[in-house]
């Protein structure tokens, strides 16, 4: 589903953020991405979502080579890849409902369909009753769950999460990881960057570790 072939990413100001990364993920696989701060986890995820392009090497997603993807196709690629950000990236002046609806609005769906799907997604993350609230009125954990609902509302086959439990308490973190496992069970391909090594170990999924932009460990499938 996702394949990296000798991928390098260089930032002019910093030098190499990723060096010679190669790995492959099967459809429906759930993989953790760990490594110290600055190891290149976010950079790797950004390459998959085409927020960034590699300096060298190739990234394939769902059989498509992102390097040869025409510019006009980028939006359609992103609709296949749900992204969850550590800083949530929610619109502060829009309601929870509107935030979650955004990917569907962008796809041009009708009102009824949007309402139905947004409520289904909010139900999955347990926020059905907060649909009218604005993000600022929500706790960090609730905001994170709004971000997750938005990422899954269009039912993309791939889900990327960048430290989704970054500043949540252990119970909430576990809840969110359990939620991810549910998506995994219905066949979504998940790649989750996280610092939370205890959780990672307890969940028993394949784990890839980065260090200074190099892939230093890959547990393989459990």
């Amino acid at each position, binding site marked *: 589903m996702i394949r990296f072939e000798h991928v390098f990413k260089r930032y002019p100001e910093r030098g190499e953020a990723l060096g010679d990364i190669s790995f492959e993920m*099967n*459809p*429906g696989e759930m993989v953790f991405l760990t490594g110290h701060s600055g190891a290149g986890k976010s950079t790797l995820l950004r390459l998959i*979502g*085409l*927020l*960034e*392009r590699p300096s060298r090497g190739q990234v394939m997603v769902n059989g498509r080579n992102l390097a040869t993807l025409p*510019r*006009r196709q*980028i*939006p*359609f*690629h*992103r*609709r296949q890849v749900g*992204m969850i950000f550590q800083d949530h*990236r*929610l*619109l502060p002046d829009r309601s929870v409902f509107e935030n979650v609806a*955004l*990917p569907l609005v*962008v*796809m*041009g*769906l*009708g009102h009824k*369909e949007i309402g139905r799907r947004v409520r289904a997604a909010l139900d999955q993350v347990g926020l059905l009753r907060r649909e009218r609230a604005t993000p600022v009125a929500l706790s960090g954990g609730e905001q994170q769950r709004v971000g997750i609902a*938005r990422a899954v509302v*269009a*039912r*993309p*086959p791939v889900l990327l999460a960048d430290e989704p439990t970054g500043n949540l308490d252990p119970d909430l973190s576990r809840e969110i990881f359990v939620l991810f496992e549910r998506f*995994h*069970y*219905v*066949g*979504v391909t998940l790649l989750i960057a996280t610092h939370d090594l205890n959780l990672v170990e307890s969940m028993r999924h394949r784990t890839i570790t980065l260090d200074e932009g190099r892939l230093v460990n890959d547990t393989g499938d459990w």
Partner: protein
Amino acid sequence: MAKKRTVRSHNPSLLDLPGIWFGHHLQSVIATLGRLMDTPLPTGMTVAVIAISLALPASLFVITENLRTMAGGWDQTAAISLFLKLDTGDRDAKTVATRLQSWPEIAKVHLITRDQALAEFRALGGFEEALEQLKSNPLPVVLAIYPNAFNSTPERLERLQARLLKQPESDFARMDTLWLKRFQAILDLVQSAVMLLGGLLGLGVLLIVGNTIRLEILNRRIEIEIMELVGATHAFIRRPFLYTGAWYGLLGGITAWLLVSIAVLLLQQPVSRLATLYRSEFDLQGLGLGATGVILGGSILLGLIGSWIAVNRHLEGAEPG
């Protein structure tokens, strides 16, 4: 791939698509107007600047058009009045007229007999007593010469005048419309200048809308960024800004139209009064249907282009590196 989920996407039937498409656009059109109305002061200021930029060339256009109509009315008078020698009778005059009529440069010859001339002179009033004193009609036969359009330029008229004078029956020839031709030539020049000014100010409108939209984009750049993250196409992001630009243009165009029309209404009375003093009737014409169409259509187009440029500059600056 055992656990592979079927990715079902909403699949509207093809028949629905135009309806959905139209619904989205209509919604966007109304929503963008609503957004503009939410901030009446800045919106009003932008619209006012656009309106003034458009009203200036539009009012100059109205002025030149009216002058042209006025000059057109005078054009009914003959280009050359050929006065025949006093001893030329009406009969001989008719032969001369027929002869001149056959000249290629002359479109029409109108014969004014001595009696007609006298009657006309009487009608002007004020000369009754003087005329009573005279025993015979002092007025000669006059041939009013209307050249065709090709021969109406000042130089050709002068050549025609010289040729007419060589006729044995001719006494003298007066050129009536030379000044008019000159006036019309000047009017043409002025109107070209007005068009040029209109073009420049139109460019100004483009920049005003472009800059307003640019600021709007800066205000909403986080929203735009997030929309791009969830898969919005450039066309989708562009759409509300294009509608906003079109609204600015349309509102500015309507305001400009109102400004010019009100000015015309206010000037209507004084102009008619002035015309009466000169024994003529003249109605000041406002912006016609065509000019109104050009102003409204042009202003919408300028708004669209201005916002298109602004949005595209922003979107192209935000490509993945």
